[in-house]
């Protein structure tokens, strides 16, 4: 056989193979056993609010979703995607929108700002979506959200934590509590309980999420009169932190503050313990993933996370979400999934309250949402379209996050 033809044949077979062994990680929940009893979903109370004419809704209402589904950022995009699809299915099962159904069109941004812009353009101009959920990264949001703003399409980010996201315009929303709302309280609480006076700090300095987290930590530590004996950085995707940790261990801090996402944080914990650095490790939203304890195991015990969401929150909305997520995807959700799930519910509720599929009306209804019962807690948007709800401080005990007291 000619080499070219061999290659062609092989590639075709290969592609078929992939299609056959379809990704188990992102099934549409439709294919899953029906979600647990919808129980105490947000519906009841939320509907009571403006109680506008929601009978006007009919047909299919298309909401776009632009997230990183391929490439390294898919590690966050996958749970987000899961959360959105789960919420959409519940919303349609419960007929939240009356005769109308909520259709989600998802586009992959690959974590790239140019592709995020392209995805937004496609969703707005081709799919004629009434609103967009996304994008995954703050970087992409800074590039793509202005597109939605100009087109007058509301956009709701569920994982953008950088400062200035909602300053881009009155159509830009987020439901992800920025680190500045989470970390000062975390430092206050842990300093009070643990009584540390000198700490070392580690953060990823090439990532918007971890850099923002560090900025807030540094300010909060300075404000609380804590001495910072060392500040060390790493890069996204690094796996070896031993040089930094050795340097830190020699300075004998009383706590280690880490602004990192769960995957890097887990390896930092493992290596810190191996190097004999046995002090409490404190982080922000980035820690709040079941992966932390799963990967770090015993090294994660006692790790403290200031977070926007508590998986153990007994509120019925949260329990319903966690149960349904487990049933649909066979694992615990992380904070990204919880925030994306909430974002979808918020958007659907706004559509319902607006009683119309007009983007401007949806924007107004979204901005007006207050005291919405959600897995994140009782949820409102502030005047700048940022989230308002109470953050928590969590600690890993026996491999599970619990409220730190």
């Amino acid at each position, binding site marked *: 056989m000619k*080499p*070219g033809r*061999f*290659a062609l044949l*092989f*590639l075709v077979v*290969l592609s078929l*193979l*992939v299609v056959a*062994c*379809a*990704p*188990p*990680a*992102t099934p549409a929940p439709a294919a899953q056993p029906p979600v647990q009893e919808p129980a105490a979903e947000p519906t009841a109370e939320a509907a009571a609010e403006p109680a506008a004419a929601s009978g006007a809704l009919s047909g299919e209402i298309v909401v776009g979703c632009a997230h990183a589904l*391929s*490439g*390294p950022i*898919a*590690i966050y*995009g*996958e749970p987000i995607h899961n959360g959105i699809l789960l919420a959409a299915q519940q919303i349609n099962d419960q007929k939240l929108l009356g005769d109308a159904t909520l259709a989600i069109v998802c586009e992959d941004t690959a974590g790239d700002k140019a592709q995020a812009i392209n995805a937004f353009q496609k969703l707005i101009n081709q799919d004629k979506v009434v609103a967009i959920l996304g994008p995954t990264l703050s970087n992409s949001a800074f590039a793509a959200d202005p597109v939605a703003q100009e087109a007058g399409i509301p956009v709701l980010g569920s994982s953008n934590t950088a400062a200035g996201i909602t300053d881009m315009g009155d159509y830009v929303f987020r439901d992800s509590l920025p680190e500045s709302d989470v970390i000062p309280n975390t430092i206050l609480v842990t300093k009070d309980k643990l009584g540390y006076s000198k700490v070392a700090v580690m953060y990823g*300095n090439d990532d918007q999420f971890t850099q923002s987290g560090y900025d807030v930590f540094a300010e909060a530590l300075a404000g609380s009169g804590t001495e910072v004996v060392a500040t*060390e*950085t*790493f*890069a996204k*995707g*690094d*796996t*070896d932190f*031993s*040089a*930094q940790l*050795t*340097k830190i261990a*020699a300075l004998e801090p009383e706590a280690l503050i880490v602004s990192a996402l769960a*995957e890097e944080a*887990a*390896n930092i914990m*493992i290596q810190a313990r*191996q*190097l*004999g650095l046995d002090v409490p490790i404190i982080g922000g939203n980035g820690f709040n993933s079941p*992966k932390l304890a*799963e*990967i*770090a*195991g*015993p090294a994660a015990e006692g790790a403290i996370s200031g977070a926007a969401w508590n998986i153990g929150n007994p509120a019925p909305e949260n329990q319903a979400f966690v149960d349904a997520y487990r049933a649909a995807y066979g694992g615990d959700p992380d904070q990204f999934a919880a925030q994306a799930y909430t974002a979808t519910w918020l958007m659907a509720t706004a559509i319902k309250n607006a009683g119309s599929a007009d983007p401007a009306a949806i924007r107004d209804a979204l901005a007006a949402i207050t005291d919405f019962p959600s897995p994140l807690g009782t949820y409102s948007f502030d005047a700048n379209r940022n989230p308002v709800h109470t953050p928590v401080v969590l600690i890993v005990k026996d491999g599970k996050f619990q409220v730190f007291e």
Partner: protein
Amino acid sequence: MFWQQLVNALWLGSVYALFALGYTLVFGVLDILNLAHGAVFMWGAFFGLLAVTKLNMPIWAALLVAMLGAGILGIVLDRVAFRPLRKRNAPQLAAIISSIGASTILVSLAQGAFGAQVSRFPFDTLPAQVFTAGPVRVTLVQVIVFAVSLVLMAALLLFMRRSRSGKAMRAVAYSGRISSLLGIDVDRIIVTTFFVSSALAGASGVFLGLAFSAISPFMGAPIELKGLAVIILGGLGNVPGAILAGFLLAATEVFGVAYVSSDFRDAIAFTVLILVLLIRPSGILGTAVERRA
């Protein structure tokens, strides 16, 4: 602190060297920039992980499975992405495109099969033992990885120097045309090269998976760049050079963090790399013979 940092540097160096071993082999023999090596490395880690978690194999058997699996994958990679180009006398740069294509496919396949999430070997795969010697702490995993890296390096050097295939490989690396005139089956040697190189990538995937608990479809990307720097710094296709360069890069990084600043870790490493190349334009142990394009 100095001694611990020295240990850190040796440890990281063995990781880089292990990754670079197979990489430099393909580079040296075929003279192509294979950007899919990181993807084969990643699949090696997953083969090992599956062998341990699904087939309940002990880690040494899983290592063999990973090497075999990655080796076969390497041969397939050659058949699909590189052999057709050789048959067409394609310019060397063309291989960059097909290797990027192959890498994209392999990474996406892994994401399709395993999801994007990070996984790790079970906690009981190796005992989590820490040894203390004076001011220095090392883990059992580190000792094992270091030792096995040295063994693999020695084995590869012996293979290249002593075995028929190894000698033939070096001949092909020198010139494919002359080798075929000498009666060497160049195609067979290339297949062997891909198998050995990819098996080594698979082994390093398993070891890095054991060492760093960060197995994911994207684990190949960060180390790919470092590996590339190492093999070029060492001198094209020069196995001892790659090993030496691996330790040099690691030492630069670790001591850069220890005595300068972690903010500039990669900048320091790459500045040193550029400076070394300016002094030794064909790498540390590279020969000064100019290769014709």
